């Protein structure tokens, strides 16, 4: 797959296969294209996909609108969650769930069932009941916003979750809570793409594979130990290796 933003090529031929139940970590230095990858998969329109395809559930994701991708089961946990003043978290999620259900020819969720679900999933990320009733992300601390992303993820029960630098701006306690939530959502049917700068998050969310993204390409893939190696040596040796290869 290739993609560019405002004419500048960011992703330059990227191949990745994620099987159900797998957790893939995407690491890489600043500006390597990590967040672009997350945005392109979710369908943000600032990015132009110049070639390739993304197969998901047997459909080419790139043919689908952002909302249909979400309805197919793709979830992006935003690096910077957006505030929507005046719209309660609960109302927002209920609307989202019912839109997704409608797409799948299901009846709207029963209020009772919905409330039970909220109660259950809140616990995953130790989210205060009051936060669920507050406006979406408005006045939330950085940590609360990230926890809210995972809470939403739990509520919408996606098949593929993309975490875009979910660890950024989190203190150690919040990081543990968020990672815990994610781990509880791991299942044989659900896959994760975890985009991060640091090994730290991967201590908690242990990946099956680690990929290093550099200059819009995956230049190295390996088991979870690769992350440790990166933490130790930094990205310079990868850069050196890559330039030698070129």
């Amino acid at each position, binding site marked *: 797959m290739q993609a560019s933003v405002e004419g500048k090529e960011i992703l330059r031929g990227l191949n990745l296969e994620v099987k159900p139940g797998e957790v893939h970590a995407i690491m890489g230095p600043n500006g390597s294209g990590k967040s672009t990858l997350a945005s392109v998969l*979710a369908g943000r329109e600032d990015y132009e996909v110049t070639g390739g395809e993304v197969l998901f559930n047997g459909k080419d994701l790139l043919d689908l609108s952002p909302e249909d991708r979400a309805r197919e089961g793709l979830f992006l946990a*935003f690096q910077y969650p957006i505030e*929507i003043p*005046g*719209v309660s978290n609960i109302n*927002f*999620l209920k609307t989202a769930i019912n839109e997704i259900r409608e797409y799948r020819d299901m009846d709207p969720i029963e209020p009772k069932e919905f409330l039970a679900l909220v109660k259950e999933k809140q616990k995953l990320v130790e989210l205060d009941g009051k936060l669920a009733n507050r406006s979406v992300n408005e006045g939330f601390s950085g940590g609360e916003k990230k926890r809210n992303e995972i809470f*939403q993820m739990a509520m919408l029960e996606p098949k593929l979750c993309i975490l875009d630098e979910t660890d950024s701006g989190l203190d150690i306690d919040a990081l543990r809570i968020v990672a815990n939530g994610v781990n509880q959502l791991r299942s044989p049917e659900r896959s994760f793409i975890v985009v991060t700068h640091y090994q730290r998050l991967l201590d908690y969310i242990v990946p099956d594979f680690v990929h290093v993204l550099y200059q819009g390409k995956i230049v190295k893939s390996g088991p979870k130990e690769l992350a440790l190696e990166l933490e130790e040596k930094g990205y310079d040796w990868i850069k050196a290796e890559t330039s030698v290869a070129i």
Partner: protein
Amino acid sequence: MEEKNQILEEHIASEYKYGFVSDIDTEFAPKGLNEEIVKFISQKKNEPEWLLEYRLKAFRHWQTMTEPKHWPHLHYNSVDFQDISYYAAPKKKATVNSFDEVDPELLKTFEKLGISLEEQKRLVGMESKIAVDAVIDSVSVKTTFKEVLAEKGIVFCSFSEAVQEHPELVKKYMGSVVPFTDNFYAALNAAVFSDGSFCYIPKGVRCPMELSTYFRINSAGTGQFERTLIIADEGAYVSYLEGCTAPQRDENQLHAAVVEIVAHRDAEVKYSTVQNWYPGDKDGKGGIYNFVTKRGICLEANSKISWTQVETGSAITWKYPSVILKGDNSIGEFYSVAVTNNMQQADTGTKMIHLGKNTRSTIISKGISAGKSDNSYRGLVRIAKGAKNARNFSQCDSLLMGDQCGAHTFPYIEIHDKTGVVEHEATTSKIGEDQIFYCNQRGIDTEKAIGLIVNGYCREVLDQLPMEFAVEAKKLLSVSLEGSVG
């Protein structure tokens, strides 16, 4: 970004649900306006001499006035006041005593609008009842729950009926808040008003149900000039709702109403409007000219008047629901959402006139502009000399959708007493693409996302509306903005 703008440019006129015309046998006054017409209307309504005199005085005064075209931020062709019929009434009996006497075509019309005039029907399965006064063109056709209300001494009827049955009340209060000399349209209304609602809540009575008037313009070539008068006597409380629609027509139709509210000691009146007159098509053809004077007076101590309006309709909106805070410790509130799309123009706001001591007022205004529309907030806060410790808080927010619409704020603040405190906050923002994408990513399409975001934006105001009305208003907000983005 560019693509977004392009999408924004593709305006599709949102479908106006209430654009139908009913085939009702109607009696008209000949077009034009002169003293003969004024007499004709008065005669049709079998009015007492004093009221005819009042009308004629108003008419003569109106002739000396000019259309207020220079100060509002509105651009439109002048109204030809001689090309309008000032009286149109369904031919069946103007007022009916029992449900069976109402013209079935009329019932169908209101049914289509979602307003049931059948009391039985409304009672079943509904926790809160709403009494309705239904006004079509120039006359009130049916008022429901009159008897139930009468048991508590509450008078709720058409204005014409009040003139016959309670002339002393009408004479005492009519024009006491909005005199005919007030402005051009108030003078016009005083001369030719045809009907409207009248409501009197006696001392110490809390009105057990919401009262509402539903206005419908049906006939072509007419204007609607209704007058509403609400009086809350000492310690009384009433919540009043007003809704309105009109057929889809290529010509502009004039609606010039007057609403007066009087609150005595310890009384409270809540007045809510959902204004959905036909806004014209996407090129600005047709639509209602809505020139309305609404004003309440907190006549005595500890009284409270609160206006809540959701304005989505009309080609032109010119209205400033106001409160005169005369009684000490009285409270005035104005909560407003004004939405303009396509070629609509709105110049709306409020006036809070502080005369009494320790009076307080709150203004929350949310303007939303889309398409090529223009949306202005215009508000006056005046603290008169001697209005000790008066307070006002104003918040005026504007939300822009697309890059071809306009939002303007014209606050006027006059403080003549040193102890007064006035706060004014204003914001202007654009609907965020980030917000829309965030919703999209959760499975919510752009149309729904905008509805959600806009409703959230207006929540402070919508929360003020009675429950059932709020549901309607929320739907209406989404519908009004349909097609304004992607």
